[in-house]
């Protein structure tokens, strides 16, 4: 038996897999096989990024949020307002969107780490609605229910203009999403990420072993908020518009649904969920826009009833079962 160095498990788990590289290459090749749907493809990437930010908090950290759109919308309005007031350079605008949302997340985290259960649900819901109503009331600044008009974004790096086909937008969203996934990948495989998962599994025990969880939860809430703001800023810049729905309860609910659909607590759960959800919405709401919510509700009910671990979790369980059966067959031979 070989001796195993401490931390070898981490290394094995955090090693880059061929599947991941293939996945990102496949996404990068989207302009080749769906050239007419690049706008949808960017929106999927943005939604995946938003779901990833929630995954860090809910999937890994086990903290429910029903108001995550607060950070998404804050990022969107930050990027949109900067551009509207003449700061049209996209990258710095995006960084600003991330920082403002992260600052809000940091401020909110002092409230959030003190609560759990129903009170946590209520406060996150309340904070989300608070910002929504605030943006609605400040119609002079935000445009109210008409949305933020006149958002002009300068060409990326001064070279690539944002066009109607969405080619620049897609590449831009792709690079940002890739960077964010790499960052979160690094975080969840770090000791910090493991302590979050420990908190999710058993908060009392984490306290008993002396882990400073309050500080760590504040940090993860801040990071998660910043990533959500990044997603919001991306949406504002690529669509050159910000509507009140960026802050709405529906968006907060949707992102939870997307994450659960794909599989929470898994790096690519949000991406898979966003892919299925956005394409599903595109197809189903084309046929019957009014009843999209019926299908959404039905999907949610069915996932909760029959596939509580989401698509990725269900797939992994299936794989384990198939492998187990194969191993059994081998043993019998």
């Amino acid at each position: 038996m070989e001796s195993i160095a401490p931390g070898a498990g981490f290394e094995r788990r955090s090693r880059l897999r061929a599947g991941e590289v293939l996945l990102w290459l496949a996404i990068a090749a989207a302009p080749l096989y769906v050239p007419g749907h690049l706008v949808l493809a960017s929106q999927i990437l943005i939604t995946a990024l938003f779901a990833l930010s929630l995954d860090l908090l809910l999937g890994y950290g086990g903290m429910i949020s029903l108001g995550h759109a607060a950070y998404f919308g804050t990022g969107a309005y930050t990027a949109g307002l900067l551009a509207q007031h003449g700061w049209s350079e996209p990258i710095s605008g995006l960084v600003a969107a991330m920082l403002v949302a992260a600052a809000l997340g940091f401020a909110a985290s002092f409230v959030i780490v003190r609560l759990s259960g129903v009170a946590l649900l209520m406060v996150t819901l309340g904070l989300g609605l608070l910002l929504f109503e605030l943006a609605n009331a400040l119609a002079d600044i935000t445009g109210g229910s008409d949305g933020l008009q006149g958002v002009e974004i300068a060409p990326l790096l001064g070279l690539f203009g944002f066009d109607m086909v969405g080619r620049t937008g897609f590449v831009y969203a792709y690079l940002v999403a890739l960077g964010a996934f790499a960052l979160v990948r690094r975080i969840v495989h770090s000791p910090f990420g493991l302590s979050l998962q420990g908190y999710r599994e058993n908060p009392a025990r984490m306290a008993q072993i002396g882990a400073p969880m309050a500080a760590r939860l504040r940090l993860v809430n801040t990071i998660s908020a910043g990533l959500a703001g990044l997603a919001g800023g991306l949406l504002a810049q690529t669509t050159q518009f910000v509507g009140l729905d960026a802050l709405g309860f529906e968006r907060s609910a949707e992102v939870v649904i997307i994450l659960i659909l794909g599989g929470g607590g898994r790096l690519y759960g949000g991406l898979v969920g966003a892919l299925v959800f956005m394409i599903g919405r595109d197809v189903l709401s084309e046929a019957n826009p009014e009843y999209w919510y019926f299908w959404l509700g039905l999907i949610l009910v069915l996932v909760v009833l029959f596939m509580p671990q989401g698509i990725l979790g269900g797939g992994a369980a299936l794989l384990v079962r198939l492998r187990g059966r194969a191993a059994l067959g081998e043993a019998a031979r």
Partner: protein
Amino acid sequence: MAVELLTLLFNGLAYGVLLFLMAIGLSVTMGMMNFVNLAHGAFAMLGGYLGISLTTRAGVPFLAALPLVFVAVGAVGAGIEVTLYRRFYRSPQLTHVLFTIGLTFMAVAGATYVWGSQIAAMRVPDWLIGQTMFLGLQVGSYRLFLLLVGGAIALALVFGLERTRFGAMVRATVDNRRMAQSLGIDVGRVFSLTFALGSGLAGLGGALAVNFLGGIQPAFPLGYLLVYFLIVVTVGGLGSTLGALAAALLLGLADAAAKFYAPVIASFAIYLVMVVLLMWRPHGILGRR
């Protein structure tokens, strides 16, 4: 000035009573099973639409329609509890939230399919239209009716919970489910009955709310109503009837006052108050846990 203040007080109380009727079922069932039922507003919506259909299409008199709505929505609630909710009581709260949001979305789309997406209003009898003199105050007849009916039901509920055998069983189950079970209380049955009663009251409240709010829309259970319910429940303290009553009346008064004096900030001030209250007392004003 004094008249204005009294009218405001009156309207706020009428609204508070309405909120209490719609939310009390949620408070008791959440306190009992720790089941976060975000679909509770859908029962109120169903009650509202059933009330509209009964009075306008089927020609049932308004006063006769109210008990019918109560019974019908209660039966629907009991059916959902027995077939669906029951299997989730041991699941984590995230599951409750997701499942009931899913049900709400389906209910909203279903209501759009059956009743259309327009605002639907209800016809009430002539004696409920216009103004009435009440204690020397000129008040809306419908609001007076609401206050009297709602107040009577609220009193009956508080009395029933404090003084009857079934009420004692409900309180025992809310306090300590395991202990209640060891004492021979059939917790499952108590919960089913309470859930049916709570959904029925939500339906009744919904039917009463149609004329008060000037009509309802399918998005009714998703919007501010859900939040107001949750405020009543969490601020009042889970499973506390008197707490829920106090919270509902306060919320009704605060809503009426804020909309009258500061309409611009009213919409978000209410959430601010809620967040601050929950930070101060995470288990409600009168909550014990």
